[in-house]
């Protein structure tokens, strides 16, 4: 599961006011190289919730991203490379996503998060 995916998902448990972002419990991280695509990165940048992304990357063992980022950084190759790496190349292979309000764990196995809710959570 890439961090781009983590940046899009929110806890939908009944009663939760703000289910974003999930905390991450890391057991295993895998790196998978992906071709660099600057156009994609520039397009997606404004849609990324930056703080959640930086925190998640750090949890996954990648602290290289700047705490704050604005679009002027998109001219920097160095920044784009780090952005690319954190967003697309780091995968949570084993671990869990944790609802920020209820603490409920959603296990991640073989890179696939199980987001199925129990009956009482719907």
């Amino acid at each position, binding site marked *: 599961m890439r961090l*781009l995916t983590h940046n899009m*998902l929110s806890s939908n448990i009944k009663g939760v006011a703000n289910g974003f972002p999930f905390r991450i419990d890391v057991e295993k991280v895998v790196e*998978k190289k992906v071709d660099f695509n600057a156009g994609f990165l520039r397009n997606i940048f404004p*849609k990324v919730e930056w703080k959640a992304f930086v925190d998640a990357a750090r949890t996954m063992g990648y602290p290289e991203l700047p705490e704050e980022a604005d679009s002027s950084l998109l001219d920097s190759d160095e920044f784009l490379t780090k952005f690319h790496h954190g967003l*697309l190349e780091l995968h949570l292979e084993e671990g869990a996503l944790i609802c920020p309000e209820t603490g409920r764990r959603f296990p991640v196995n073989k890179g*696939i998060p199980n987001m199925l809710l129990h009956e009482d959570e719907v």
Partner: protein
Amino acid sequence: MKLKQLEGLLGELQQFSNPKELEQYPTGPHIASRMLFTAENSFEDVSNKVVADFGCGCGTLGAAAALLGAEHVMGIDIDSQSLELASLNAEDLELDINFIQSDIKNLGWRGQIVDTVVMNPPFGTRKKGADMDFLCVALKVASQAVYSLHKTSTRDHIKRVALRDLNASSAEVLCELRFDVPQLYKFHKKKEVDIAVDLWRFVPKGNQGKGTEHHLKSGTS
């Protein structure tokens, strides 16, 4: 990539052999290739985009999206066996697809960061309304377009509901296809049946624009 090439690659994927009570009809390579090829060549809705395959099953539509250059593909399905199969299929084609196990109705999304949703939803034959549930969520999550297959017999109903209730600014049938439904279930009387399906393209209303942190709770309207 040419259409024939795409269809050939998708033809190598493994399909269901043991479906459950979820109306899991695999999207064959013929339909899947045409669906995604049209989405990309006529509308540029695939390459360099974030694409989600709702009810991905064995992952055919998502795989097609990835093969046509989608930058980030997510495949969502409720069934673990399907996802296992989909993972193997993605591996076989050396594709990086992000799978998520979830009920489409219960998945929470932070906003409309998905560009395009592609799907072959349940027809709503066994569980009434399942097709509309999928469409409802898709139109909340996608920012650019939703491509979906629905029975031709439901065409007028779908158009009406999509435009009136589901936040679609446009709903067009791109073409009519014939879908082979093999005798997978006990309730099927005939050995094989040909169903007329429409390939739809829906455009969601009011793109939220960039950088919005609008929290979406997915669910039916």
